[in-house]
């Protein structure tokens, strides 16, 4: 475990609706070292968002444990060690862009390590990093969805969390915006050195961003494969056209198709 603090997921299972209910996650074991970028990929309803919320201390698993930098995930959440970027930007429409980025500082006060006379400068620098210089005084309703999601990213980074949890943050965006945001995300993460757990349903996006890609099967969510991504960082968009990229993507997609076949076969009498 490095100084930035890794994540240890030990035998995590999650059941919704009591013992007769749905098993969302079944025996997840995963170790993520500090500063690592791990993507979780799976089809809709495989429990990947649930796993992210368990790691972030927002949900208690039915069984198993998660330790973040040696603390339980609940304790780590109370110590504000997570940044979270949601599927929707979840900005407050009554606050301007800068106000939204400064929200954590206002909520945390002295608990924010970046708190102080220069917390505004830090927020402005983050907005510059995500390409939103000059939009500080706009309201969220006046900027595009992609820009809103970048504000959400800047907000999540504004208090220097050790761990960044991202729940399909770019899923609702068009391909070009997504490419640009992926590059900016890699750049920003390279700068902050935070551990990232990134949930997506796009295999391409996962391989492009992550050091390791974790494949989840649907209902119950089990890890079917953990793949090392063989491309060094920093990365460029061009790596997506290398044969190794396509081969890995094809291999991972094969896992999903295989699962579907099994499910189909099971549904046939």
């Amino acid at each position, binding site marked *: 475990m490095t100084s930035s603090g890794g994540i240890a997921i030990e035998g995590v299972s999650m059941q919704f609706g009591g013992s007769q209910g749905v098993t969302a996650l079944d025996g997840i074991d995963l170790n993520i070292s500090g500063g690592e970028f791990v993507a979780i990929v799976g089809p809709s309803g495989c429990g990947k968002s649930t796993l992210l919320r368990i790691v972030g201390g927002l949900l208690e698993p039915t069984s198993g444990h998660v330790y973040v930098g040696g603390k339980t995930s609940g304790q780590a959440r109370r110590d*504000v060690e997570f940044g979270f970027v949601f599927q929707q930007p979840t900005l407050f429409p*009554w606050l301007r862009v800068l106000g939204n980025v400064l929200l954590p500082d206002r*909520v945390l006060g002295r608990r924010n390590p970046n708190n102080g006379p220069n917390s505004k400068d830090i927020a402005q620098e983050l907005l510059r990093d995500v390409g939103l210089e000059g939009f500080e005084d706009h309201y969220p309703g006046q900027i595009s969805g992609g820009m809103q999601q970048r504000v959400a990213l800047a907000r999540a980074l504004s*208090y220097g969390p050790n761990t960044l949890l991202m729940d399909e943050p770019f899923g609702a965006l068009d391909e070009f915006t997504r490419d640009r945001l992926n590059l900016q995300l890699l750049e920003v993460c390279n700068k902050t050195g935070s551990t990232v757990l990134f949930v997506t349903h796009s295999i391409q996006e996962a391989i492009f961003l992550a050091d390791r890609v974790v494949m989840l099967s649907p209902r119950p969510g089990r890890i079917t494969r953990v793949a090392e991504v063989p491309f060094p960082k920093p990365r460029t968009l061009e790596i997506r056209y290398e044969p190794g990229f396509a081969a890995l993507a094809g291999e991972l997609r094969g896992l999903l198709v295989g699962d579907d076949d099994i499910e189909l076969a099971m549904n046939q009498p």
Partner: protein
Amino acid sequence: MSSIRKRSRVVDVLLRVLPSVVIFALCLVAWELWVNIRDVPAYLYPSPSDIGKELRDEGLSLAVDDLRWTMTEAVLGFLLGSAVALFTGIVFVHAKFLERVFFPWAIVLQTVPIVAVAPLLTIWFGFTLTPKVLIAALICFFPVLVNATKGLRSISSQAVELMSILSASKWSLFWRVRIPSSLPYVFAGLKVASTLSVIGAIVAEFTGADRGIGFVIIQASYRLDTRLMFAGIALSSAAGVVFFNIIGALERLALRWPDARLDR
């Protein structure tokens, strides 16, 4: 440059108001013509010019002696009813159990005809300000309660999770998220309540008062003084419009972000 923009904004407002003013004026003209041509008895249908004369002669004393009281009752009732409704809404949002117990009572309060309650309150409190304020408050309570409760609930689960990730207190969630997200709904409710409060005050005055527009109207009706009745109606509805627009102006001050106002 800014003066050009300013002037065009004034023109914008005029153009927006103009159609309704023109229609209103046309209705008055048609009414005037109809009364004159058909020669209907003035004690049944006074012409707008007669009502105008009445307003010119009696308007000032009506406003000072009576409208002032009616609006005092309406505004006090509005403040009381809205405050109690906001407080109740906050309690409901934080204690689902209390909402289950007491929301049916709020509906009962709303469905009780105020015309029937007003005489009762007059018996209890006499010809004082109190029964009028209470009736106005009663009529304001429900729309504000329903809107406030809806507004306080209008936050997304992700917003709650965001505050949880920030380890924010319930208090912080309440002030920084619930209250601002409820404001558009609260103001929608307050605007409805502002017009209702004037009605409540006048209805309460019908059942026992020695001054106020409601008192003037009911007294005039005994004497078939329709000109005075219309003058009272015109004055009170004008006051209601002013009250509504004051709340609307406060709303514009409070809700400055784009698409904040619900009825635009």
